[in-house]
């Protein structure tokens, strides 16, 4: 007797991640046609005969370049670094500014790692899916060929002038001159990722999803998400504030460190008030424009960016004269009672 057995309990979060990272690619024979967004999957299947691409979690995980060992190493390494940091504080040993900045980054990267825990890592090709067939099966055609290292490099180098001439583009500044777009891009791109503008759209590059797809927040989660991002920014700046009264090579550097830490912490508090201020100015000067609504928060972000740069540069500059106790190792045995 033949029975039908389900191999799993349906889609997991891994399936969800795989679908939004561009995991399902429509094929015609051996030719990739376009990437399918999650809502388009209904009329496709792995063979062309079904009405949904049914893929097991094991098949998806098989595409991931991460496994228990690589995840374990990341957890152990980060965990060990943070433990050491905490124990140094407990034992009253000084910490270098570079260690502090690294801890701040490590904590945030760890959060990113956890958020992406189930996302398959570094997948290069999606899964082939086919539209439900109505006609005779076509010939398979040629499979993609490997391109040599040098050919690929040559293509990339000759392709470069094109992309330089085009320049970077953010939605709000599509029509600005090239130089402005280049200067503004590093400032605006990150904001664009966090707060997609009204015109934000997930353009389909046909054969891949956008780098930061999905671009839009799920509206049910929007307020919650903004609070989470703000809290994380706060934690990030807060960790840097820990160096408030560290030993600095000079008092200028100490002052700079303090100002830079504050310039990060202020963003989550000031961002929305700044936008309201900008909106008020716009309403007063010219109700049809929203230039100040955008420019005033941008000044805050400029401050943030300068603060981030300063903290990174300072943490290296401070290495030139460290308090000697920074080199003392932790006395681990003091944590074992009766020794």
């Amino acid at each position, binding site marked *: 007797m033949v029975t039908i*057995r389900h191999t799993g*309990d349906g889609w997991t979060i891994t399936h*969800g*991640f795989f679908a*939004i990272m561009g995991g399902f690619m429509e094929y015609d024979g051996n030719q990739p046609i376009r990437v399918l967004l999650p809502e388009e999957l209904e009329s496709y299947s792995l063979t062309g005969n079904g009405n949904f691409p*049914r893929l*097991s979690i094991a098949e998806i995980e098989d595409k991931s370049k991460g496994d228990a060992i690589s995840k374990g190493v990341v957890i152990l390494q980060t965990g060990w670094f943070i433990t050491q940091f905490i124990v140094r504080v407990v034992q009253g040993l000084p910490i270098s500014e570079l260690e502090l900045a690294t801890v701040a980054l490590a904590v945030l990267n760890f959060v990113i790692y956890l958020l992406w825990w189930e996302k398959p890592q570094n997948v*290069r090709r999606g899964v082939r899916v086919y539209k439900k067939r109505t006609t005779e099966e076509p010939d398979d055609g040629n499979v993609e060929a490997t391109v040599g290292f040098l050919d690929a490099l040559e293509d990339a180098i000759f392709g470069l002038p094109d992309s330089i001439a085009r320049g970077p583009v953010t939605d709000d500044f599509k029509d600005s001159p090239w130089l402005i777009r280049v200067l503004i891009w590093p400032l605006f791109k990150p904001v664009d990722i966090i707060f997609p503008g009204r015109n934000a759209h997930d353009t389909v590059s046909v054969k891949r999803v956008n780098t930061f797809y999905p671009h839009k927040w799920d509206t049910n989660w929007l307020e919650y998400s903004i609070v*989470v*991002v703000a809290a994380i920014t706060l934690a990030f700046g807060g960790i840097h504030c820990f160096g408030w009264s560290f030993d600095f090579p000079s008092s200028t550097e100490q002052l700079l460190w303090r100002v830079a830490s504050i310039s990060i912490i202020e963003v989550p508090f000031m961002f929305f008030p700044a936008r309201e201020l900008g909106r008020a100015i716009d309403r007063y000067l010219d109700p049809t424009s929203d230039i100040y609504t955008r420019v005033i928060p941008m000044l805050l972000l400029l401050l943030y960016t300068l603060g981030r740069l300063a903290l990174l540069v300072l943490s290296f500059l401070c290495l030139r004269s460290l308090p000697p106790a920074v080199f003392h190792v932790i006395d681990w045995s003091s944590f074992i009672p009766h020794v």
Partner: protein
Amino acid sequence: MHPNIPSPDERWPTTAWRRAGLMLLALFVPEAVIAWALRQRQIATGLAEEHESESPRIEVEA
């Protein structure tokens, strides 16, 4: 880093460039990467609920 899947038509330098850019972004504005990852997680969770019943089926001889 857990980037999205590159296009099958693009050559490795393009993919490498994108990855390098993401690394820089994670170094200078880690909040942006957190926002992106958080968004993906929320939507992936939603998709998992929506397609709860879609599982691969195999026929077994009993």
